[in-house]
């Protein structure tokens, strides 16, 4: 028996090792959401990010001049927009007072730099140089001047990883700004798509898509992209709407983390409501 095992090992050791490692990999995949794995991951990427931030800074210096020019131009445009918005804000304030609406704006922003990227077409992630010490928490939205870039997924003391919109594991409730119709947006490996959109919905090409207030991740509207037509699914009652994101994930360097997480109060209220009817 021992001789048989010995000869079996000698003849097939490559395949045995491959099988063991593949089984081990599958086990690791199943342990992804375990808190212990999350803790190890936070420590590991925190240590790695402190090294990559140095390298990233070196490469960023070259692009600073060009970026400065762009920022000056953006600044001028924003100044013009600001004056228009001030006018609108005054009118808005009056109307709000009339309707006794609660002001929900004014979320603080945490500036951050992207220090490394995983530009996979499936699982896009970016590492930011802000973490727990800057009050960053899991679930906070990451935005640029153009719109939503992603959601914080893992946090260490000084660094954090955000899933970009080009990540199959990130799904966000969005709405058409014009028609106010809601839908679930996800990355399907090729495009950003709003899935299971009833064919009766009036979402048209060119419509601005923003995050929905129904979202448990982003509680107020942030621009996401523009609708780029439907994937005409002939059968069934649902359509898929393609969305072109405003943010260019390959070029994103400076971002803001929006210091807000979905209200626990709302979550618990909804949960209690569901439990009541189960």
């Amino acid at each position, binding site marked *: 028996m021992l001789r048989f095992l010995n000869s079996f090992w000698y003849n097939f050791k490559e395949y045995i090792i491959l099988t063991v490692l593949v089984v081990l*990999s599958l086990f690791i995949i199943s342990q992804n959401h375990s808190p212990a794995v999350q803790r190890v991951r936070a420590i590991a990427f925190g240590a790695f*990010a402190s090294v990559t931030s140095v390298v990233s800074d070196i490469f960023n210096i070259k692009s600073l001049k060009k970026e400065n020019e762009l920022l000056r131009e953006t600044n001028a445009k924003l100044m013009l927009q600001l004056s228009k918005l001030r006018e609108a804000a005054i009118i808005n304030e009056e109307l709000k007072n009339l309707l006794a609406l609660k002001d929900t704006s004014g979320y603080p922003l945490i500036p951050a730099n992207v220090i490394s990227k995983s530009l996979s077409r499936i699982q896009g992630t970016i590492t930011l140089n802000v973490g727990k010490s800057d009050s960053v928490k899991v679930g906070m939205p990451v935005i640029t001047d153009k719109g939503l870039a992603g959601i914080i997924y893992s946090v260490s003391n000084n660094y954090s990883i955000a899933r970009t919109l080009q990540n199959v594991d990130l799904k966000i409730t969005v709405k058409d700004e014009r028609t106010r119709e809601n839908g679930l947006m996800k990355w399907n490996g090729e495009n950003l798509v709003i899935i299971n959109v009833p064919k009766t919905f009036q979402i048209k090409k060119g419509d601005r898509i923003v995050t929905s207030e129904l979202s448990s991740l982003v509680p107020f509207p942030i621009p996401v992209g523009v609708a780029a037509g439907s994937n005409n699914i002939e059968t069934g009652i649902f359509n898929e709407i393609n969305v072109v994101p405003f943010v260019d994930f390959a070029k994103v360097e400076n971002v803001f983390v929006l210091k807000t997480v979905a209200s626990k109060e709302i979550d618990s209220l909804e949960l209690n409501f569901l439990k009541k009817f189960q």
Partner: protein
Amino acid sequence: MKINYIISILIFIPVLIIQTTVIPLVSIDQVVPDLILILLVYYSVTEGQIYGTVLGFIYGFFFDIVTGSLLGSTIIAKTVAGFVAGYFSSENKIDIYLMFFNFGLIVFLCALIDQIIYSFFSAFDISSNIFLIFFQNAFLPAFYTALLSMIVIIFVPKKRIL
């Protein structure tokens, strides 16, 4: 053997830093070459199949844990890629396999397998266009990686010093 593993892991660290900081700058429509795979194939060809399989597992583990991708998806992809690359490991033919065109073809094959497995575990969706996903997520990155590997191998001495 153990020292070889330590050296290959030490070399992996700067390669991983370059992969996550510099390589995105040379992406073409979000298609990026995989430097880690090139290193893995090189070690599999020069050190053997078992070495390549184990090293693929280690490289995949470190990559997954620091980049935030689904833990295990890169591990399984790199393990199998290292195993396949190991088929091209032969004492007598190392010099032939490390010639720039041959090495490029081996890297292309391994990158294709690596990317297909990675895509399967991280984004398998029956409603998606499988052919398009295969082309965008596997073929294009594999081709880019193979091209880069041909450039890299020119500067690597044929006698193994890494």
